[in-house]
């Protein structure tokens, strides 16, 4: 017990610094590397317009992935988010087309509320099926993925659902294309959503419980945490994030179809993992997630801006880059 106090804490602090920070920093290092590569590939790349474009269009995946960070941290998985986007967007547009409310701004407000409520409800359904039904989240949400997508196809009769009122369209358009103090609205929304999410995850009791539940369910239960409730709420948060993404998505093209959001779930999960959150649960890195979403979008962007890659090989190279990014990240982290 009589250990000299002085040398020890140092070693420890040193180790901690390595352990904690590098892991969190790694995705940002990968991002920086990509920016450098991009700049070499095409001088237009590093321009403000292009970067703003990329950041803006990463908004959907980024926001959805923030929600996914909760679900994954709590040890679950949600494969239905892509279909959920299509479903919520369809209902929202159909509602606006119904003309139930005459005043455009009032109508828009009502539609926004509706979208959020539906998103939350879809998330709740996922959560309840997973927790109350005790079905593996992979299968439960694969099931609801089929359901939401099927309902969307049915609503749209396989085609597109397009916002019909030009008034509403004009009113709503700035929600995606506008900017505040030079910052495009979607980027602003990403930042706000992420900040709130980070606050919830790191600074509230609920956030703690998410991590505990993801890390070890029995321990959480023995500590008096309502495990199922924590998990269900994570799914609801995911649903709300999907709804927010929809609020940005609808003004962009003013329409959705049965193909909206296909495979977005894989992209969202990839963003979460590239951002440094482990799929087995127990630790969430919200800012890393955002970084991951941005990395994914950048890879596609660089590919398109480069002139020397056959369009047939883009998929292959994208795959390789993801693997390389993860290797870079690992090698940074492993040294600790």
């Amino acid at each position: 017990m009589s250990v000299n106090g002085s040398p020890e804490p140092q070693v420890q602090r040193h180790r901690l610094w390595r352990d904690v920070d590098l892991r969190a920093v790694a995705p940002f290092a990968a991002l920086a590397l990509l920016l450098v590569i991009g700049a070499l590939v095409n001088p237009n790349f590093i321009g403000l317009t292009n970067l703003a474009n990329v950041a803006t269009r990463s908004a959907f995946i980024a926001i959805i992935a923030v929600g996914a960070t909760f679900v994954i941290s709590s040890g679950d998985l949600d494969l239905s988010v892509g279909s959920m986007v299509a479903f919520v967007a369809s209902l929202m547009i159909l509602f606006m087309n119904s003309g139930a409310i005459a005043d455009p701004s009032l109508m828009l407000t009502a539609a926004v509320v509706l979208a959020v409520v539906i998103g939350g409800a879809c998330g709740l359904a996922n959560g309840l099926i997973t927790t109350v039904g005790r079905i593996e989240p992979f299968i439960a949400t694969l099931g609801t993925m089929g359901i939401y997508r099927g309902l969307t196809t049915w609503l749209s009769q396989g085609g597109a659902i397009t916002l019909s009122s030009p008034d509403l369209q004009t009113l709503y358009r700035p929600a995606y294309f506008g900017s505040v103090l030079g910052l495009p609205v979607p980027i602003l929304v990403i930042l706000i959503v992420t900040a709130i999410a980070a606050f919830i995850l790191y600074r509230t009791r609920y956030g703690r419980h998410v991590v505990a539940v993801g890390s070890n369910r029995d321990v959480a239960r023995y500590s008096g945490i309502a495990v199922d409730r924590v998990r269900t709420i994570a799914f609801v948060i995911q649903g709300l994030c999907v709804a927010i993404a929809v609020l940005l998505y609808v003004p962009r093209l003013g329409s959705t179809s049965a193909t909206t959001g296909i495979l977005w779930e894989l992209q969202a999960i990839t963003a979460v993992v590239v951002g440094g959150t482990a799929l087995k649960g127990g630790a969430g890195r919200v800012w890393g997630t955002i970084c991951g979403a941005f990395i994914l979008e950048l890879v596609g962007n660089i590919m398109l801006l480069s002139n020397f890659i056959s369009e047939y090989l883009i998929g292959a190279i994208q795959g390789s880059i993801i693997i390389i990014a993860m290797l870079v990240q690992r090698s940074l982290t492993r040294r600790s």
Partner: protein
Amino acid sequence: MTLGGDAPRTAVLAAERISKSFGEVQVLFSVDFDVLPGEVHALVGENGAGKSTLVKILSGFENPTSGRLLLDGQPVTLPANGAAEALGIVLIHQEFNLAENLTVTESLYLGREVTRFGVLDRRFMRAETRRVLDQLGSHIDEDALISSLAVADKQMVEIAKAISRDARVVFMDEPTAVLSREETDILFDQVRKLRDAGTSFVFVSHKLDEVMELTDRVTVLRDGQWIKTAPTSLLDGEAIAQLMVGRELSSLYPTKHEPNVDEEVVMSVAGLSTGYVRDASFELRKGEVLGFSGLIGSGRSELMEAVAGLRPRLAGEVRVKGQVLPPGDFREANRRGLAYMTKDRKGKGLLLGEGMTANLTLQSIERHVRHGYLDPASEANAMARAKRRFDIRVRDEKVRVGRMSGGNQQKLLLAKIMETEPEIIIIDEPTRGIDVGTKQQIYHFIAALAREGRSIIVVSSEMPEVIGLCTRVAVMREGRMVGMLEGEEISEQMIMRYAAGLRRQASA
């Protein structure tokens, strides 16, 4: 049931005719038990006697099949899953109940986080954690991740967690199994202080000297039945042991068998260093039992894992029978007849979700391959043999290992290692959580192995164990081997002197 003589005090918490069955297996038979205010009550019994089950029922983690609980004399149904903490009833689980991804502070406050305006008051919680840890004399960093802690430190976190709550009754299920003497002393001081302030403790332990030292009353369970409750002062260790086992115990330790000086050196370690352990060298002879003693965290496990090839080493050489053992190749070490038994039976030793047989033969599965495929009959034979040899007691043959009592798990782990028929066996904490009767069996077993010509390294935090078993004892301190004791030198005082850094040998 209550003691004669004393003024009748109402028990804080009492159990009346508690029975418990898991499915068809009954593990408690109409047990009575009570905890008086401000007492330390020992609960002892053999492995699988039902101690853990009883304390789980008393703290609301399990429901009794029949019988009732009284809180302050009133019948209660305790809320499940640790919610009984609100009533002041706290349990330190025998198995760690910590989430690896949380920090020490987070674990301490899990489920009862302190918030201000809905925001976690992290500074307050950290300061409180620090205070409690300091009180326990523990130097664990309050921001360290649980996953980075050694087993003993995890136990300290569990203890800190329990005493940081305003508890009326604290159940401690083998809290000292992985603690050093010093840490145990600090813990006991705390317990006494809290007891004098009115808190009651139930202390489950296999260390009868500690029971004698700390507790006011003792309750003995045997095979799920209540045997006796009596003031500790009226009993002694021998008597308790006899009540537990139900028969007379012969001497705990077998006679030592010293190998010849010119006996072949089967393993030699020279200049071995890892991140923490520096420059360790020692030799092991055929038929020898070599002990490794030292304080918790002195690096014994790290050294042994490096020797066995489970951990990378930075420098040094290990030779088995003169041949250099390649570093970091545990499988090669196994092939050369070197086995290592981990002290972390739950995390690294056993597959908790599988049955006993799958675990037993996991490391030696090739012995059961006939014509290219596994022979279940041969495995079943091995299981039957192991159960006899190690006295593994279960009431349900198909039980998942995670549901076996701690001591029986330990025996199964030892059996699993022995299935590989190693020549050199490194046993890390051989009797963690094992009752006296079984301990004796294991000690005799180790001695028998040595007589057969096998060589054994015993890493243990229990000094009597090292002293009683080993012909030589190495002492480690802060990652270095500071002494090698032989013959008459082997005594608690000498070991402590080296371990605490008051003495060191030039040669080591």
